[in-house]
C-alpha cells in the first residue's frame, strides 16, 4: 500500500496545530473550595509531532486533553487548535471543531455495539455530513486495511479482539482527516503485546499522515519512544527527560 495515500492533506512543516497560553482550569470556582487543576499551562505541538504527556493520576493530564479536545473550556487562558481559540466558540462551534479538526482515542475503544466496525469508523463523517460519501468509505477502508482490519470491517465490535477494537478506534479518530489526535492512555486497556503493537501503529500513522498526536500515558517505556515528553505536575506542564 502506498504511504502517500495516507497523507490526508499537506501540512506545513513545524506548524503549531496545538498551542496553549497560560491555560488555567479551576473546578468549583464559585464555591468555598475551588480546585485549580491547571495552573498556567503553556505548550505547543507541531503537525506530525508525537508528544507524550506523563504524570501521576489526578495531575490534570486528562483535563488538559479534554480542553485541547474542545470537550471542556478553560477558566482563563487560551487554547488554539489549528489556529482557532476554543474559548471563543459556542456549543455548536466546539462540536464542529471536534468533528472536523480533532480525533479522539480513549483508553476504552467505545465503538458502538449497534454498528459494524466500518460503520463505527465512518461515524464522525456520518455525523458531519449525514452520510459518508464513496470517497469517505474508500478512505475508511484503506485506513482499516492499514491497521489490518480489512477482514473484520463488517463485524460488530463484540466480535473483535481488544487490540482490533482499539485499532478500529484509531481509524475512527483519523477518518475525518483531523489535524490533531488526542489519545488518553490508548494502550491502557490492552495487554502489553497488543499495547505495544497499537503504540507502534500510532507512531507510524503520525509520521505518515502528518497529524499531531498528543498521547497521555502512564507507561514511561512508551513515552520514551515519543518525539517529545511533557510531564504534568502540580498543575504545570514541563519538558521531561526520560
Amino acid at each position, binding site marked *: 500500500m502506498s504511504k502517500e495515500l495516507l497523507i490526508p492533506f499537506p501540512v506545513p512543516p513545524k506548524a503549531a496545530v496545538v498551542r496553549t497560553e497560560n491555560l488555567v482550569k479551576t473546578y468549583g470556582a464559585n464555591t468555598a473550595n475551588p480546585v485549580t487543576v491547571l495552573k498556567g499551562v503553556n505548550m505547543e505541538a507541531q503537525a506530525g509531532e508525537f508528544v507524550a504527556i506523563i504524570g501521576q493520576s489526578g495531575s490534570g493530564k486528562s483535563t488538559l486533553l479534554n480542553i485541547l479536545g474542545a*470537550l471542556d473550556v478553560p477558566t482563563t487562558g487560551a487554547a488554539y487548535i489549528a489556529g482557532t481559540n476554543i474559548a471563543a466558540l459556542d*456549543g455548536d462551534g466546539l462540536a464542529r471543531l471536534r468533528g472536523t479538526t480533532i480525533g479522539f482515542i480513549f483508553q476504552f475503544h*467505545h465503538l*458502538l455495539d449497534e454498528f459494524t466496525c466500518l460503520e463505527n469508523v465512518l461515524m464522525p463523517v456520518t455525523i458531519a455530513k*449525514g452520510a459518508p460519501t464513496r470517497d469517505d468509505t474508500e478512505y475508511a477502508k484503506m485506513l482499516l486495511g492499514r491497521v489490518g482490519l480489512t477482514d473484520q470491517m463488517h463485524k460488530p465490535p463484540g466480535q473483535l479482539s481488544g487490540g482490533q477494537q482499539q485499532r478500529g478506534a484509531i481509524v475512527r479518530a483519523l477518518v475525518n482527516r483531523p489535524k490533531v489526535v488526542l489519545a488518553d492512555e490508548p494502550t491502557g486497556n490492552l495487554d502489553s503485546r497488543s499495547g505495544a503493537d497499537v503504540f507502534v501503529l500510532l507512531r507510524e500513522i503520525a509520521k505518515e499522515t502528518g497529524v499531531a498526536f498528543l498521547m497521555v500515558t502512564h507507561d514511561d517505556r512508551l513515552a520514551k519512544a515519543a518525539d517529545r515528553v511533557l510531564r504534568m505536575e502540580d498543575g504545570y506542564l514541563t519538558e521531561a527527560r526520560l
Partner: protein
Amino acid sequence: MRFEAMLALRHLTSNRGQTALTVGAVAVGVVAILFIRSVISGVQAEIVDDLIGSLPAIVVKPVEKFTARLADTDSRAAVDVGAGSDILVTREQKRPQQREEIAGFAGVEAQLRTFPGVRAIAPVAQGGATIRRGVKRFNVSLTGGDPAGLDTVIGMSKNVIAGKWIGLAPDEIIIGWRLADDAGIRLGDRVRVEGATPNLAGSYRVAGIFRTGTEGGDLGAVYTTRRTAQSLLGLGANVSHLFLQVEEPFAADKIATRIAAALPYKTENWLVTNSTALEGIQGMNGSRDMISAFALMASSFAIASVLIVSVVQKGKQIGILKSMGATDGQILRVFTIEAGLIGLTGSLLGTAISFALLSWLMTIPLPPGPTPFPKHTVLFPITIDGWTFTGACSAATFATMLAAVLPARRAAKLNPVEAIRG
C-alpha cells in the same frame, strides 16, 4: 437528519425487547382509547337513532290561541323559577274546546322546504283516540300520515315486525306489539277505533304490528293513513302537525328557531323534548374523554420512563458521539425521532388491533333478554369511524413525542466528559 434517523432506527432495532415493550405500551393505549370511543359512540348512535329514528327532529304546530287570563291570584314570584329563568307555568288559559289545526298544509310544506337543513317533511293528523276490543278500551295516540312520506321522517317501516306499513289501505291501522299483546289483537283482526268523538268511529283491520322499544310507542301509539286520521279526528282537510326530519340532528334546535321566527307556527325539536337522554349522552362524552386522556397519559408516562432509562444507558455513547462532533441538537433529534417512530409504530399497531377487535365484537349477538322483540341484535353497538381512528393515532404519536421531550433534552445536555467517564 440522516445521521439522527439512522442512529434512532439502529437504537430501536438493536434492542428489540425494549422496543417491543414500548411500542406495545403505545398500542395498548390506542386500543383502550379506540375501544372506549367506538363503543360509546356506538351506544350514543343507537340512542340517537332510537330517538330520532322514531321521532321527528322538529314538529311544526299551530300557535295556541288564548282566550282569557287566569285570575291574578298568583304572584309573579309564584310563576318564575328565578331571575332570568324560563317561566314554567303560564297565566294564560288555553282553550281546550278549540282544536288547533293547520289549514292549507301543502303551502306550509312548500315554505318549510325552503329552510336549509330540512331533509324531509310529513304532514300528519295526530290526536287522542280509543281502541275498543270487546269491553276493553285502550287510549292511544293516533297518527295519520302518508306511509311513504312518514317513513322518510320517522322510519316506520324498520320498526314493523309483522304485516306492512307501506301500502296501508284507508281502513287499516298498525299498532305496537305491547298493545297487541295486552289487547289480544292479532295481525288481520279488526278493531273499533273511536276518534275525537264517539260518533267519529269505525272498524279497522290491523295490517301491521311494530316495535319502537319505547313504552309510549309500543303500548300507546297507533298509525294509519292521513285521510283516516283526519276523519277520525274531525280535522277535515287540515292537519294537526308537520313532522320534519333534518340533515344534521344536532342542528334541529337552530332550524326550529329559524322556522318559528319566520312562520306563524310553533316548533318543538327533539333536542328539547329528549333533553334528559341528551344530558346522559353529554355525561357519556365527558367520561369517554376522561378515560381517553388517562389512557394517553398512562402510555406517555410509560414511554417517558423507558426513554429516561434509555438515555441513562446510552450516556457513554452520547458522550462519544459528542466527542466526534455531534451537536446537542443532533442528540435531541435522535431521541425525538426514536420517540416518534415508537409512537407511530405503536399507534398503527394499536389501530390495527383495535380494528380487528372491534370488528369481531360487532359480530357478537345480543343474548336473549326479557323482550320477545329486541330492537337491537348485537351486544356491542360499535361505531368504527375513520376520523376517530386517525385522531387516536395522531394523539398517541404526539403524546409519545411529548413524553420524549424531557429525556431527549436530558440527553442533549449531557456533558461529554462526564458521560464518557461514566
